[in-house]
Every structure is written in C-alpha cells, then in structure tokens.
C-alpha cells in the first residue's frame, strides 16, 4: 500500500500561559481512514483538532493537513476540510436548505452545483422533505446529522468531527456511523473524537490522549490485545487511570 498521509503531525504543542493543553503529539492519518481521536474530558482533543483546522496557532511543533502547513497555511487548509464543532453551529434562523446554500456559496460552489449536492446529501439522511424547515426547530439528532452533511457539502478531503454523537440516542448514533462509513468509502478521511468506546471499535485506528499526550495509537483490535482487555472500554480505563 502506497503511503498517502493527509494529516502528518510532529511534536504539535499548544500552551495557554503556564498550562500545556497539547504536549508534543505526533501521528499520521492516511487518506480514506477513519481515525478515532479519543481521550477523557479536558485531555486536549478539541485543542489539537482546532490547530489542525487552522482555528488555533500551534505554540510549537509541525503539522500538515491536506499538504499545507498548519502554522502558516491555515487558510489553504480550510478549502479542503470540513468541520463539525462540538457546539451546534449552523444558523438556527435559516432553513436546512438555506444553510446548505450559504456554506456551499462560501466554499465557492455554483448555485446549480449546490442544489444538486444538497439534494444528494439530504437524500442520504432521508431528510429531503424537511429542506424548508428552520434548523433551530429540529431535534438534536437531526441537527447533528445535518451539521455533518453541511460539513460535507464541498466534498472535502478530510472531515473533522468533534464529538458528533454527544447526547444523541443509540439509533441515531448507529445511523450516524453508517454515514461516516459511507463518507470514508467514498474517499473522505474522517477524523473523529468521541466518548463512546463502542464507537471506537468502528474506527480503523484510534489514538488515546491523556493529559495532552498520546498514550496509545493502533487499531482497536491490537490495542485490546496489547492491554489484555475484552473491549475498548477496558483499554480506555486502563490507560487513563
């Protein structure tokens, strides 16, 4: 297999004053991979992800996303990535379709292209009938699926999902992971954080962060083997303790 990494990170660090949120992490993510980025609350996952998305400058270290440097080429990176924040951040007063149009337009897509892509994405989540509804009135599960679809509107190379299934019911969670798998099969790299260890098992590889550092990085199966654990939950508890 030819190594084609879309994310490469070496010694990436972020300090806020005396506090080191991310402490020299290094890893690489291959194209089309589902990469699980796990860790306890406050371990530094969101901070690391924000650096990769060009929202936050690293204090130290190097990193490239889609071939561009995270320190100096943040704006280039932004053309090739999709991002779904932990906080719901679509415009609530706009309808489903209007949000799609807005973000499609921002990514420089043509109107006909946006229309076509919107239909395609809404069909995928079986939501075409609700295209005219205001986003603020939708239940959480729908909002999350929609936010994912908006992040996919411009067919990004990499999608960053920050706890996309937080607070979502088990059925919607399973649907969500079907969507993720579908996107990965189509060639999009998925970079996802989660607290649910059953979800970690769906990832190709997972990293586990503890206090700003990556403590483990491998496929779920070999991590379970190494740690002599029956499931990912045990792996997580053993590492974080």
């Amino acid at each position: 297999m030819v190594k084609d990494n879309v994310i490469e990170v070496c010694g990436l660090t972020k300090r806020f004053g005396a506090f080191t949120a991310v402490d020299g992490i290094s890893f690489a993510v291959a194209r089309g991979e589902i990469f699980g980025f796990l860790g306890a609350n406050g371990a530094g996952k969101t901070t690391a992800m924000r650096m990769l998305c060009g929202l936050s400058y690293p204090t130290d270290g190097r990193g490239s996303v889609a071939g561009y440097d995270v320190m100096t080429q943040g704006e280039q990176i932004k053309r090739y990535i999709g991002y779904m924040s932990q906080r719901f951040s679509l415009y609530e007063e706009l309808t489903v379709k209007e949000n799609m149009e807005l973000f499609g337009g921002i990514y420089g897509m043509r109107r006909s292209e946006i229309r076509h892509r919107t239909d395609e994405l809404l069909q995928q989540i079986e939501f075409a009938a609700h295209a005219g509804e205001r986003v603020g009135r939708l239940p959480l599960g729908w909002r999350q699926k929609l936010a994912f679809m908006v992040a996919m509107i411009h067919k990004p190379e990499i999608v960053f999902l920050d706890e996309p299934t937080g607070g979502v019911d088990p059925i919607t969670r399973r649907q969500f992971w079907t969507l993720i798998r579908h996107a990965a099969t189509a060639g999009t790299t998925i970079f996802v954080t989660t607290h649910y260890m059953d979800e970690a098992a769906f990832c190709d590889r997972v990293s586990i962060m503890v206090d700003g550092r990556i403590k483990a990085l491998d496929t779920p199966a070999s991590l379970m083997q190494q740690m002599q654990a029956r499931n990912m939950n045990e792996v997580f508890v053993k590492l974080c303790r």
Partner: protein
Amino acid sequence: MRRLGFLIRKEFISFRRNKFLPRLIFVFPIVIMLIVPLVSNMEVRGVRVAVVDEDDSQMSHVIVSHIEACSSLSIVLMGQSYREALSSLEQGRVDVIVSLPPDMERLLMNGLLPKIRIDANSVNSTKSAIGTQYVVAAITSGIAEMGVIAMAADMARITSVRYFYNETLDYRHYMIPAFIIIIVLLVCCFIPALNLVSEKEKGTIEQINVTPVTRMEFTLSKLIPYWLIGIVVLTEAILTVGVVYGLWPTGSVGAIYLAAMLFAFAMSGFAIAVANISDTMQQCIFVLFFFIMLFMLMSGLLTPLSSMPQWAQWLTVMFPPRWFVQIMRAVYLRGTTIAELSSAYWALTALAMSFGVLAAVSYRKQS
C-alpha cells in the same frame, strides 16, 4: 466576491426573521423624533422673581408691570423686606430678587443714578444668566417708558437684532439634526456589534472561521446590511421631522445622504472592531457605551466644540460624529453645499475607510 453575496443574503434573511429588530428599526426613529424634540428645550422659562419695592413710587410700579409683562418671568413675591426675599431665595422658592431702593424715583428724576440690586441663584448658571438679562431688560424698558433717562430710551431705539437661519429662535430646530445623528449613531453602532458578538456566543462564527472566507468578505457582510439600515433610519427620521415639525432640509438632500452614508459606514466599522475584540455581550456593550458617551459629549452635539479646551478639540478630529454634526447643521439649517464643507466630507471619508480597515484587521480567524 461571489461569497460576499451569499453572506449578505444570510444577513438579510436573519434580520427579516428576527422578532425584534425589524420592529425596532421601524418604530424607534419615529418615536424618538416625535418625543425628544418636544421635551428637550434649553429655553429659560418661568424664572421666579421676588420684588423688594422700598420705593413704592409710580416709577417702581411701572418697572414691576414691565417685569410682569415678560412671559418668561413670574413675580412670586412682592414686599418691602429684603431679608424675607433672601430667605425665599435660600429656600429655593425664588430665582431672582430685584431690590428697588427707597429714593429711586427721586434720584432718577434729578438725573442721578440709583443702585438697583439684582440677586440671582446661579446654581443653574444658564437660567440665572438669562433670567437676570430678562429682568434687566424689563427694568430698562420701564425706566425708558417714564422717559427719565434719555440714554435708556435711546438704547432701546438704536439697537435692533435680526436672527438668521432660525428666525423663531427655536432651540428645537438647532437640536433636531443632532437627534437625527444620535439615532443613526445608536443604530449603526449597536446593531452590527451585537449581531457579531451573538455569533461568537452562539458559536456560529467558528463554522465561518473554518471556511476559506476572507476577513474582508466577512467584515463587509456585517457592514453593508447595517449601513443600508442606517440609511433607512435616516430617511424615517427626516420624514417624521418634516411632517411633524415642518422642518425640511434647507440644503440638498443628496449632501445629507452622502454624509450619512460615510458616517454610518465609519460608525459600524468602529462598532465591528469593538465587537471583534469583545468576547461577551456585556463587554461589547460597555466598551461601546463608553465611546458613545464620548461621541455624544465631545462632538458638538449638545455643547459647542469651540468651548472645549484646545487638546479636546484636536481629539475630536478622530470622532466621526463631530464632522457629521457640522455637516448636518450646516446643510439642514443653512443650506450649505458639499463644496463649502469639503474638508468635513474628506475627514468623514478618511474615517470611514480607516474604521473599515480596522474592522477587517481586528477580525481574527485563527487565534
């Protein structure tokens, strides 16, 4: 720039679906222009006068009748005891005391000059100064009527005053352009700034920050819609003032709109810059309020620029309202042209561009 179209469209949809803002924009300028010009009045009326008439002569009665005839003065105390009048003044029941001395008429008849004493409570300096002037005028005209001093009679005859531009000496006319400015100022500062900070608080700005939108595009998408709203508000205020008070701009409407467009752009650029550096709504409101206070007090809106210390006058060069006030009063009341005010227009243009750039530069997509 195609992106800008999408962003502006979003601003208009959000504005239209907002429950509060469209109503505010429609009602606020009209209500303010209906109420504020009526209640804010610097004219001095109802000055309470105590007369201590120790002379009790024909002359003193004529003077009293002249004081009574003055619509701004009202005699609340007549007597012969100065002490009684003074205690009334100390208790705040009287503003001005006029003491007519015992042999006033006799002295005047003999061509001598009696001392007529006037005491005034000058806590409110404007009221005491103007009230005293009214009293002096009433006394002079009373003496003149008696024809005792040729000079006094001549004084009344030889001076004549003609008032230009505001013939009725209506303070309202002087202040109406200022109130229009205040409305445009408030709308153009608060609405865009609070809109931007609310995007920060809701987190929607983060979704924008991970896109390749440029800082200029995003900033313009916040400036342009509120700039148009500023123009709408101005139009409402001008129409209300014209219909209700009959005050229409003397100069060209184009001159007013050109100045207003520059002013609105400068103010919303300034407000967006403040919003960019604010993390919360409270912070943003307090910083804006601080500057709005300075703008209101230091731009010649309420008190003349020329009476401020020199350093303060220099400082106001950076205040957009200073130039807009100058233009609005000149164009509205005197009909001055753009060419005559070119320096003020250039200053506003420079400030509009500077604040626009400041707004774009202070916006950070990456922290």
